[in-house]
């Protein structure tokens, strides 16, 4: 299981990486915005994408839309982990095809639950 974490803050990437390790996921890569993430997703096969929304360069929602528009990546499960908490934004992410939405600040339990939910549904 190969996972890509996209967040512009290195501390947040590190927190998520640690939580994923606790959940038994050790194969994790990082990117700091959509512009760096998209080529990584296109060149290597990832099984799961965790992305922030508000990032310089390409935002998380643009990344999500690009992933869904790319024939090869369209089925990739995407979890959004973000401080953006407006209802209209959550609806926008849902319409863009997000698989889960976690608002910051979040707990280890919430992240675990969403990840498990996504993979139970996928399998």
């Amino acid at each position, binding site marked *: 299981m190969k996972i890509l974490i996209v967040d512009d803050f290195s501390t947040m990437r590190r927190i998520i990486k640690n939580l994923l390790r606790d959940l038994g996921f050790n194969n994790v890569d990082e990117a700091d915005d959509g512009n760096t993430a998209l080529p990584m997703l296109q060149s290597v096969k990832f099984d799961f994408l965790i992305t922030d929304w508000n990032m310089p360069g390409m935002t998380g929602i643009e990344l999500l839309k690009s992933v869904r528009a790319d024939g090869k990546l369209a089925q990739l499960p995407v979890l959004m982990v973000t401080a953006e908490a*407006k209802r209209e934004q959550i609806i926008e992410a849902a319409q863009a095809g997000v698989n889960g939405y976690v608002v910051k600040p979040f707990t280890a339990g*919430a992240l675990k639950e969403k990840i498990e939910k996504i993979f139970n549904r996928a399998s």
Partner: protein
Amino acid sequence: MRELNQQISEHAAALMENLQAGDSTKAWEAIDQLAKARERSLFQEIGKLTRTVHESIKNFHLDSAEQLDPNAGHKSESRMIDATDRLQFVITLTENAANKTMDMVEDSVPVAKELSDSSSKLKQEWQKLMRREMSGDEFRELYKQMDKFLDFSNEKASTLEANLSAILMAQDYQDLTGQVIKKVINLVHEVEGSLVKLVKMASQIETITGVTHENVKSDYQDEYLEGPVANKDRSDVVESQDDVDDLLSSLGF
């Protein structure tokens, strides 16, 4: 203002009188007086306002304060730039603290795992002894293992203690960033006060000069990506992860 109004009404009365008396020369003179009164008061008021505007802008503590007043003589650091630097400093401090804390946690997790692994291994041996299933050789081995484990756990506990203490110390940023942020909040309040004064002055200028303008629609828009929301009473934002889950399940997720 009152003095000006009185002058205007005096000249206006003279104008009416002269007009009714059919003395157009004197009527023109009255009109002239009216215009002069307007000009004089304008100059006075604008002079006053310019001084106050100048002071207010200086209170903004912007770079432009120096440009406005080249005779000030001293080079004062712009407080706006200073505030930006201070906030940048807050980011650096909090980032360092987060990294330091995570270093310590990442260092401690394997230590705790080692302790738990060795104690459960020892526990198995110990149970064997309690069940009296242990040979003499095995017992001598356990005897040595127990001694090693006690040393080992002592050493690892010291490591954990040192790491926890380092995590505690890494929280000292809270005090420092709190002080810095308070200073920036004070500056924001000061600038807000100066801005309100400027707006009041602008409206005075409009009253004096008789300038009217249509209400310009503010082109201020809520920033689309606003990040963490401090005001949880707003109805357009979710309060918790539960709200997010409810919203998504109402959309069929």
